[in-house]
């Protein structure tokens, strides 16, 4: 059976459904506009650990166990864990899976990893390789700053285009049975590089990739933006969102008014001083596994697109003069 439509959109006849989901966030996120939607706030960022990296790993482990628990399962019943984060060698996911003891595939797609893991998980479940797959990603402001930018106490100035890495993790269990929100389609993104070199403007680096994936999906499925209750982009931030709107207009899609961005939803720049909005794999993961999926459970949203975007930047190759490649993966969720 051919499970592809159009150029590169996947179609899942068994409709893998979200069996259980869970979100864990840091203190700043738990004071933001979505504060009532998250399952757990960890308070101070160390989360009882002695380093930011260990704290982030614990974040992911907590989210993963929360999702498994919500699904009414135990880790032994999960056949595959698909996880990733922003840190070198994906250490948060690696160390979370050290204690989870679930067959593990580590993923890296920068901030797009949540959608990447859901696509891989859907393929796994739809291909009948197992009944349950666990998808989780995380990020932590402090571990990301020290790896990608400056020490926390360094007195630098963030430009208005900069985004704030979310401290948080989201996890969900996909199952071939069940009647939760189901993943019906997915489009795997291509790397699009528009020549942006500014490490403080991730939104601009990701917007072209987001536009490319989105219009490919509409073409492949012969649908239009108005066919969906909402389109959630990963973490383009305020500037990336504006750029995506403009790019979509250039591609003759007119004004898309049902588009919202997880990076813009999670913080309030006026009171939280987060500049262009949230970013990091934990951003789209925590927003999807709280706000979006809970709204779907309540039937306030029936059919949505979730497209996580990633800026595949590395300080090393940026210093060598390379520009920042962007990527965006998309899934369609239906009740």
């Amino acid at each position, binding site marked *: 059976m051919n499970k592809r439509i159009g150029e590169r959109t996947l179609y899942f006849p068994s409709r893998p459904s979200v069996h259980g989901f869970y979100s864990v966030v*840091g*203190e700043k996120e738990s004071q933001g506009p979505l504060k009532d939607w998250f399952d757990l706030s960890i308070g*101070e*960022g*160390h989360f009882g650990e002695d380093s930011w990296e260990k704290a982030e790993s614990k974040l992911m482990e907590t989210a993963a166990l929360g999702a498994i628990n919500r699904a009414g399962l135990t880790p032994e019943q999960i056949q595959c864990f698909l996880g990733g984060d922003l840190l070198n060698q994906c250490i948060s996911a690696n160390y979370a899976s050290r204690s989870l003891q679930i067959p593990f595939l580590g993923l890296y797609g920068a901030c797009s990893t949540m959608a990447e893991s859901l696509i891989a998980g859907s393929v796994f479940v739809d291909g009948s390789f197992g009944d349950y797959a666990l998808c989780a990603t995380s990020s932590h*402001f*402090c571990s990301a*700053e*020290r790896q990608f930018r400056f*020490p*926390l*106490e360094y007195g*630098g*100035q963030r430009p208005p285009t900069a985004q704030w890495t979310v*401290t948080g993790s989201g996890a969900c269990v996909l199952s071939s049975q069940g009647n939760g929100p189901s993943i019906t389609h997915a489009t795997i993104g291509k790397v699009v590089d528009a020549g942006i070199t*500014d490490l403080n403007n991730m939104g601009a680096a990701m917007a072209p990739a987001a536009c490319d994936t989105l219009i490919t999906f509409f073409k492949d499925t012969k649908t239009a933006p108005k066919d969906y209750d909402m389109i959630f982009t990963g973490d383009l931030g305020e500037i990336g969102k504006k750029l995506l709107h403009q790019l979509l207009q250039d591609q003759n899609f007119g004004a898309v008014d049902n588009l919202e961005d997880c990076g813009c939803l999670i913080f309030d720049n006026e009171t939280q001083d987060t500049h262009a909005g949230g970013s990091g794999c934990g951003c789209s993961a925590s927003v999807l596994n709280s706000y979006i999926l809970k709204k779907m459970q309540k039937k306030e949203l029936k059919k949505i697109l979730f497209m996580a975007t990633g800026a595949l930047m590395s300080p090393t190759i940026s210093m060598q003069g390379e520009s920042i490649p962007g990527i965006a993966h998309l899934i369609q969720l239906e009740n």
Partner: protein
Amino acid sequence: MMHYLNAFIFGGFLCAIAQLLIDFTKMTPARILVLYVTAGVVLTFLGLYNPLVERFGAGATVPLTGFGNALANGVIKGIGEKGLLGVISGGLTACAAGISAAIFFGYLFALIFSSKEK
């Protein structure tokens, strides 16, 4: 009192120029600091910076151009005292206090404090 005003104006001026560079050229702070320290060295050897120090006091010595100025003056003094050896030894001799203080206090504060979540 006038010397306080002088220090304020010239020190502020040097910082404002650097801020313009940050905002309009996308130069990273590290590059700007390197530019400033090198400019301080070169201007001192050209005989242009010491008059500024005379006039603006700490306004010219506290910004990083002043670090370059101290290095250069140290080299010039070293050459006067030791000739060619002074070219190498003069600069850091003059700046030893500042650099040693930064290293020692850096270590001390790292012992006492840890980075906090923002």
